[in-house]
C-alpha cells in the first residue's frame, strides 16, 4: 500500500511517499506565495521521483500551516501530531521532540505510548526559528547551509543578548563593525537561539530521549548548542532528513487511515 504525506510550512514545502513503513521518495522545496501551488509542485516531484501517479496513492495526509489549502489530501493533521508520529516511528525511546521550522519552534512531550502529552509553541516571534537564522545569514553574507560548520570553527566566545530578530541584527552589525570574526558571531547566534528554544522546552519539562526535527536540525551548530542548553544528549535521526519528519509523520497517519478503511487496522490517534 502506497501512501503520501504533504507538509506545507511557511518557508518550505515537503512531501514523502511511503510503502509499508519505507520511504520511496521525498522532496523539499522553497514555499511559494500560495500553499496550494507549493503542494502541487512538491507532490509532482515526489511522484515523478518514485515513478508513480496520484492514482497509485491510497491516501494522502496534509499537515503544516498550509494544510487546509492542499487540494489533493484526503485528511489533515496538525504538525505536532505528525512530527511526534515520525519521531516515535524511528526512535520509540523518544519522549521529547524539538521541532524548529521556518516560523515557529515547538517542543512536544510524549507519554510512554507515543501519545502527545504536552506541547508548547513559540508565540508570534521569529526569534528561535529558521527565519531568524536566515535573516542572520543574510546579514553576515554567509550561505545558510554553511552556518553550522562555520560556527564550529569559533575561537572567541561572544554574546548576542537581544532575542528580537530585528535588534539581534543590529547587534550582529555592531559585532561586525568591531572586527569580530564571522565564525564567532555565528556561534554566538546559535547559542542565543538554543537558549531561547531550551527555555521553551524546559517549560514543559524535558524528558529523554530528545530528538530534533525540522529544517534547523540540519544546522550542527544549533544542534550542539541546544544539547548544551538542555544539558542532554539530543539523539540524531539516522538516515532521514529531519526536515521531512512532519511529512513522514503525515504519511504514517495516511497509512493508518488507508489500512483502517480497508478494515486492517484500528487507528492509534
Amino acid at each position, binding site marked *: 500500500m502506497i501512501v503520501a504525506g504533504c507538509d506545507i510550512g511557511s518557508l518550505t514545502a515537503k512531501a514523502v511517499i511511503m510503502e509499508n513503513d519505507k520511504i520511496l521518495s521525498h522532496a523539499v522545496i522553497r514555499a511559494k506565495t500560495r500553499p496550494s501551488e507549493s503542494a502541487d509542485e512538491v507532490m509532482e516531484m515526489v511522484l515523478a521521483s518514485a515513478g508513480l501517479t496520484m492514482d497509485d496513492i491510497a491516501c494522502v495526509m496534509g499537515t503544516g*500551516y498550509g494544510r487546509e489549502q492542499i487540494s489533493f489530501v484526503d485528511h489533515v*493533521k*496538525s*504538525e*505536532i*501530531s505528525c512530527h511526534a508520529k515520525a519521531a516515535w516511528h524511528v526512535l520509540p525511546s523518544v519522549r521529547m521532540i524539538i521541532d524548529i521550522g521556518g516560523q515557529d519552534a515547538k517542543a512536544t512531550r510524549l507519554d510512554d505510548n507515543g*501519545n*502527545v*502529552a*504536552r*506541547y508548547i*509553541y513559540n*508565540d*508570534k516571534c521569529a526569534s528561535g526559528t529558521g527565519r531568524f537564522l536566515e535573516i542572520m545569514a543574510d546579514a553576515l553574507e554567509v550561505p545558510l547551509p554553511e552556518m553550522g560548520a562555520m560556527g564550529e570553527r569559533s575561537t572567541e566566545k561572544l554574546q548576542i543578548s537581544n532575542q528580537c530578530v530585528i535588534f539581534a541584527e543590529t547587534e550582529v552589525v555592531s559585532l561586525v563593525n568591531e572586527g569580530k570574526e564571522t565564525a564567532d558571531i555565528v556561534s554566538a547566534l546559535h547559542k542565543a537561539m538554543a537558549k531561547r528554544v531550551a527555555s521553551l522546552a524546559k517549560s514543559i519539562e524535558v524528558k529523554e530521549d530528545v530528538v530534533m526535527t525540522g529544517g534547523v536540525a540540519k544546522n550542527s551548530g544549533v544542534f550542539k548548542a541546544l544539547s548544551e542548553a538542555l544539558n542532554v544528549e539530543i539523539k540524531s535521526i539516522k538516515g532521514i532528513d529531519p526536515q521531512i519528519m512532519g511529512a513522514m509523520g503525515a504519511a504514517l497517519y495516511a497509512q493508518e487511515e488507508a489500512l483502517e478503511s480497508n478494515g486492517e487496522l484500528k487507528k*492509534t*490517534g
Partner: protein
Amino acid sequence: MDEFYDAATRLNCQAIRDWQATERPIVGYTCSYTPGEIFHSVDILPVRLKGIETEGMEIGDTYYGPFICSFPKCLLQLAGKEKFMFLDGAIITPGCDGMRRLDECWRKAAEDYKGILPDFFYYFDVPHKSENHGMAWYIEELRILIKKIENHFNVKVTDDNLADAIKVYNQGRRMLQEIESLRYRDDVVVSGTDIFAATVAGTVMQREAYNQALRRWLEELKNRTTSLSAGKKRLMLIGSISDEIELFRMLEENNDAIVVGENLCFGIRHEGNEIDEHGDPVEALGRHYLQSSVCPRMYGKYKERLALLKQKLDAARVDGVVMQNIRFCDLHGAENSLFERDLEAMGMPCLKLEREYGPMIDVGRMKLRINAFLERLRV
C-alpha cells in the same frame, strides 16, 4: 437568536438605537463589578463596553504605550474614534491595572480628541478583598456611586425601585442558569457560541426586553432534540476578559468540539448568579458583586476559584480546558498557569493560549494550537 447576535456583535445595535429613541440616558461600564441594577432602577440603560469593531490601535497605543493588555486599549481606541458617543456616562473600574488606567488615559485622550469624554465620567473603586472592611468599603463605594448618579441625572434611587430591579435581573439570571444546566446533559442541544452570544447580549439589552427574549429562546431550547455534542469533545473556555463570539465559533467550527462551559467575566460565570432579594438592596448588591466574584483580581481566593472551576468541569463532563490569556494580562496569565498545574495533575488536559484581544487577529496560529489540542484529546 438574531437579537442576541445583533446586541453582542455590533456596537451600534438595535437595542441601543431603540433606547436612544426614548431619549433616556445610557451609561457604559467596563467591569463586572458595576451593578447594572442601580442604573436600571432609575431608567438608565447600563451597557458593558466591548472592544469589538476596533480597527487599528494608534489612539490606544499613544496613551497606553505598547506593553499592556489590548482590551482596554481597544476601548480607548473606540472612544477616540467616537464609537461611544451614544454614552451619557461611563464608569471606570479597577478590574485590573490596565482597566484602572483607562480612567486617566480616556481623560488625557479627550484633551486631544474633543468631545469623547461623556458628561458623567466616574471612577468607581473596588477593593481586592471581600471580607469585613473590604465589604464595608465596597458598600460605601456603591452608596457614593448612587449619590453621584442621583445628582448628575436628577433621579432618586429608592430601596423599592432597587429591589424591583434586582428581581428583574434575577429573572434573567435564573434563566441563564437553566440554559447552563442544559450543557450538563449527555446530548447538548445548544452550541457554546449561541449561549455566549445570548449572555453577552444581556450586558447591552434593556433587561425586561432581554428577559422576554431569553424566555422565548429557553422554551425553544427545551423542545430541541437534536444533539450537537454527539462524537465531539466537550471543552471549557476560561481566562482573560473576552466578548468575542468568534473565539467560541473558532473552537466549534470544525465539528470536532463543543463548548459546554466557560469561566469568563462576560459569561454565565458572573451573569448567572442570583442576588438576595431580601434586606437592604445595596448590601445585597455588595455581597453579590464582591463576594461571588471568581475573578483573579481578588486576593486569597485561588482555592475557592479552583474548587468552583472543578465543580463546573465535573458537572459539564469537560474533556479539556482551553485557557486563553491576553498578552500582558498578568492576572489571568498567572492564574492559568496555576490552573494548568492543578488540573493537569487531576488528569484534565489543558491548553494555554496567549493572544492579543481584537477582532480575531492571529487566527491561523490559534487554530494550529487548538487542532493539536483536539488531536491530543482524541487519543
